[in-house]
């Protein structure tokens, strides 16, 4: 045991005490947020948001019908289908030869109603070719190693591609919910960390292409694609309230008016520290969803097109989840309603989390034991062909652990 619990316990107590001290401040902020939510004039806020585009430092949600609206679920269809995928991976280990990684995608096709059925599967793939490990810019000699966070992004793309494949097999004559875990926005690709050819590969040729293929799947009775985020920490809606609280008219310009003010001193800091979940929890009853909002992040605006990400919050009983979906679902109210009722039912069946995602995760997850067996399998395969498997001294020292 190298973590000295006796030394950390006082720090843990300190954290708990701070949260207790902050509780009343948080209550005040929450009350202000709720008041602002119901008193904000939607049209003026919309106008101010438009006028302030590019000038506010917060990611403000695109407004739909309202801020504090809440909707009850519609009745479930008698027969329907739910398809979900999730993934897990073994990252490149630079201490182990040869360089390679594994992506394991778990999937589930569930059919509910008069002919209930279930198909579970997992599809592992080993990537070890040069073009698997490095992405090359066709226009220059730049390369980008696919590992770490970028491998996580590639995995999301593979999850969506597999979802598309499973939808081809799923019954086409039933209303269908296609679910992914986590966000449909590849946040990791926003900003300047990755060059355009990387974004091109994983967005245009990757996730967006896969989403487009799902859109084109022939589903006569409606197909709603969405991703499910448990315990979300987004603040898109809270940032609408910041804009509403901002006293500077008609344009909110953060750098110009508040650039020199300290954090906590700005007028909009009255709702600081709150998440969308905190405030909507007060409004949405169990089973209800919020209004639909649009994500206004630069990555979505610049790349997503028809797949423009929209979202609503859903009170599933145990928690408030965020459900994200593309513009082509948002355009059809009946699909939004289907998404609402089927996602909620999935959560009821899964004790608070969609049962389809839970089972897809179970098929995808790579346990510590499986990881060790994979390494062993790799070493045996090399040894069988008399290929030396030279590992790093650091790796050896961690594996052997001598005294």
């Amino acid at each position, binding site marked *: 045991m190298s973590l000295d619990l006796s030394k950390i316990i006082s720090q843990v107590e300190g954290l708990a005490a701070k949260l207790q001290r902050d509780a009343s401040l948080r209550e005040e902020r929450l009350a202000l947020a709720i008041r602002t939510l119901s008193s904000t004039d939607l049209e003026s806020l919309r106008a101010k948001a438009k006028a302030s585009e590019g000038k506010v430092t917060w990611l403000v949600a695109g407004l739909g019908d309202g801020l504090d609206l809440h909707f009850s679920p519609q009745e479930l269809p008698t027969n329907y289908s739910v398809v979900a995928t999730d993934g897990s991976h073994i990252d490149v280990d630079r201490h182990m030869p040869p360089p390679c990684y594994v992506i394991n995608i778990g999937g589930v096709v569930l059919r509910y109603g008069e002919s209930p059925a279930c198909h579970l599967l997992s599809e592992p793939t080993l990537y070890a070719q040069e073009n698997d490990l490095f992405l090359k810019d066709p226009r220059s000699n730049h390369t980008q190693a696919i590992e770490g966070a970028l491998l996580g992004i590639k995995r999301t793309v593979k999850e969506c591609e597999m979802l598309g494949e499973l939808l081809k097999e799923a019954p086409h004559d039933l209303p269908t919910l296609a679910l992914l875990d986590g966000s449909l926005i590849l946040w990791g690709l926003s900003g300047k960390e990755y060059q355009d050819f990387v974004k091109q590969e994983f967005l245009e040729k990757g996730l967006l292409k896969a989403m487009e293929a799902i859109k084109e799947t022939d589903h006569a009775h409606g197909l709603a694609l969405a991703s499910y985020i448990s315990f979300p920490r987004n603040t898109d809606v809270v940032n609408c309230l910041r804009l509403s609280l901002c006293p500077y008219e008609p344009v909110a310009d953060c750098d110009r008016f508040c650039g020199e003010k300290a954090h906590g001193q700005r007028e909009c800091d009255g709702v600081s520290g709150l998440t969308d979940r905190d405030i909507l929890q007060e409004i949405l009853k169990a089973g209800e969803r919020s209004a639909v909002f649009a994500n206004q992040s630069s990555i979505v605006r610049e790349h997503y097109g028809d797949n423009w990400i929209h979202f609503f919050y859903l009170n599933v009983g145990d928690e408030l989840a965020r459900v994200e979906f593309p513009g082509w679902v948002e355009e059809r109210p009946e699909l939004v309603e289907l998404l609402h009722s089927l996602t909620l039912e999935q959560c009821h*069946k899964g004790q608070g989390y969609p049962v389809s995602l839970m089972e897809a995760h179970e098929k995808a997850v790579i346990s510590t034991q499986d990881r060790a067996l994979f390494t062993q399998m790799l070493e045996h395969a090399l040894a069988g062909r008399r290929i030396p498997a030279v590992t790093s001294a650091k790796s050896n020292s961690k594996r052997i652990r001598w005294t």
Partner: protein
Amino acid sequence: MKTGEGELDILAIVHNASTRSIDPTRRPIARGEGELSEEDVFARNPQLEKLLRTEFQALVVGYVRDGAHRFYLPPRPARLHAFVYLCEPEEIQEFSRSLDFLSILTTSRIASGDELVSACLRLASEAQPDKEAFLVTAGKELSLLLGREPQRLNAILRRLRT
């Protein structure tokens, strides 16, 4: 039950059955709130069929080769993927012509072994033309095997009444 291997049918008595999660780290939870029947639980959760497994354990009590019954261990165990079948009443009747299998049951160390002895005899008696005579013969056989353990013998005999 029996394995249907043709040249050698191994006979065994099921003594335990349990349904559990295929993944031992995932415990089944209570279900059925708001459902009308157990079938509804499965119909509304179609994944359960894929996640649960029922295991049976059976005690081998003999085998049949060339039509002849033997009441001791077969020359080899059942094949790994041998199919198993429930014995028909005629096969049970044929098998219980001899009560030699009782010594295997009474000396086995399985949990609730004595319950198994009486349950097995009750079931076998249903396949006999004269149920009462069969149970009397079985009781006599048991008294020979368990003569030195009167309490055990009584407990089994009391459970022979159907």
